[in-house]
């Protein structure tokens, strides 16, 4: 379970304090697939970072009673001068996962072949995305946080990722953040909508969709 209680997140900017999340509440049960909808800049990514624990709320609390991943599908966590293998080794070390047994999996899944032993800065963006996804899957979590995962590699690789995440790991809890209602609709069984710093939770996806459409037009 994940309990988000009365969370506020503010940032300092040149024009004063900006409240990105304003007293939001959400409870996520084990095995649930929860979508979070919001327009660009509505605070979705902030919310996912708070849930992951990478950032701290200004006030309120977030409790986790299961292992929670880092926000997946972001390609920037790599040290460019290190090889793909070194980056994998680093991630395994910080999560306390045995490293040797994951090499084959990452090599095969990322389809990088011998490039795994080359510095990441020599990779194309598609190669980076494949490495990022493969490394994300090398460490197992009870709950995966997915931040706009859609654009990973070509369509064949994209399908492979979908299968790996949504089929092979369908017993896990997932929190998916997106501005694309269709993606949420395909993969989630409930959804919440972020509008102007407030979070509106809905048990039925359709109601969330209707609410989102209504507010993404008027707000």
């Amino acid at each position, binding site marked *: 379970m994940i309990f988000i209680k009365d969370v506020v997140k503010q940032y300092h900017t040149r024009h004063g304090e900006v409240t990105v999340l304003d007293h939001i509440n959400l409870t996520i049960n084990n095995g649930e697939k929860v979508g979070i909808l919001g327009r660009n800049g509505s605070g979705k990514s902030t919310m996912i*970072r708070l849930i992951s*624990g990478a950032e*701290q709320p200004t006030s309120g609390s977030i409790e986790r009673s299961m292992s929670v991943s880092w926000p997946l599908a972001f390609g920037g*966590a790599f040290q460019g*001068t*290190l090889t793909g293998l070194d980056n994998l080794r680093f*991630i395994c*070390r910080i999560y306390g996962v045995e490293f040797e047994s994951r090499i084959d999996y990452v090599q095969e899944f990322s389809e990088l072949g011998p490039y795994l032993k080359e510095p990441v800065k020599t990779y194309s963006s598609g190669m980076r995305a494949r490495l990022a996804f493969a490394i994300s899957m090398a460490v197992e979590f009870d709950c995966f946080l997915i931040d706009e995962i859609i654009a990973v590699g070509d369509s064949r690789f994209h399908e492979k990722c979908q299968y790996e995440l949504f089929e092979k790991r369908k017993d896990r809890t997932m929190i998916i953040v997106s501005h694309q209602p269709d993606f949420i609709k395909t993969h989630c069984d409930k959804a919440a909508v972020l509008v102007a710093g407030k979070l509106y939770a809905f048990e039925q996806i359709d109601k969330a969709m209707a609410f989102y459409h209504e507010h993404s037009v008027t707000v």
Partner: protein
Amino acid sequence: MRVIGALLMREVLTRYGRHNIGFLWLFIEPMLFTLGVTALWTFSNAHHGSNIPIVAFAVTGYSSVLLWRNMPGRTIGAVEPNLSLMYHRNVKIIDVLAARVLLEAAGATTSFFVLSILWISIGWMQPPQDILKVLFGWFMLAWFGASLALLLGCLSERSEVVDKIWHPTSYLLFPLSGAAFIVDFLPPAAQKVILFLPMVHGVELLREGYFGSFVHAHYDISYMASVCFGLTALALAQERYISKRVTPE
């Protein structure tokens, strides 16, 4: 600890890579510094106000400067390039800073010990008279450097002024730090002033350990320890403040 270990390995790889002598640079670089300074001081017949052999004087003095000065040098601005790692919940600001502090301390320490052993074995230096005092002095200097490094590393995240100020400050502190003179040589009024600087106490203790009765050392370790303790407490408070507000990139 596991995370700090992982960051250490990563830091070593990114800084030194796997090419040529790789991570040996970690202590070869400070060794070259110390060697250069030793050579300069030897040939210029530097006045340090005692009959201490110049090689031993330079090795003890310059190594201790490297120890307390390099740690802050590496932690200032260390958070920024590592912000993307903060996406991982178990990587904390303190881990990033601690990894760099440990690496610098290891480099300076190895350099100091390797050079000492080298000079002692070829007879350019006498073995230290009281090795425990040497180690204690070294430890105090390391503590001072580490606490200063943690504090400045955090403060530099709040204001870039820290980075700008540190370079001139550390440069000016070098001649005042006790590395290039012994306190006993100074006039009493100057002694009082110079002993406000905490690292001077550490260097004096280190030198007393090395040269024993050769020198009349001036130090007050309880003063130095209080300063270090204060710096450590401030650093940890700052670390908490920064951690609460850090935004991963």
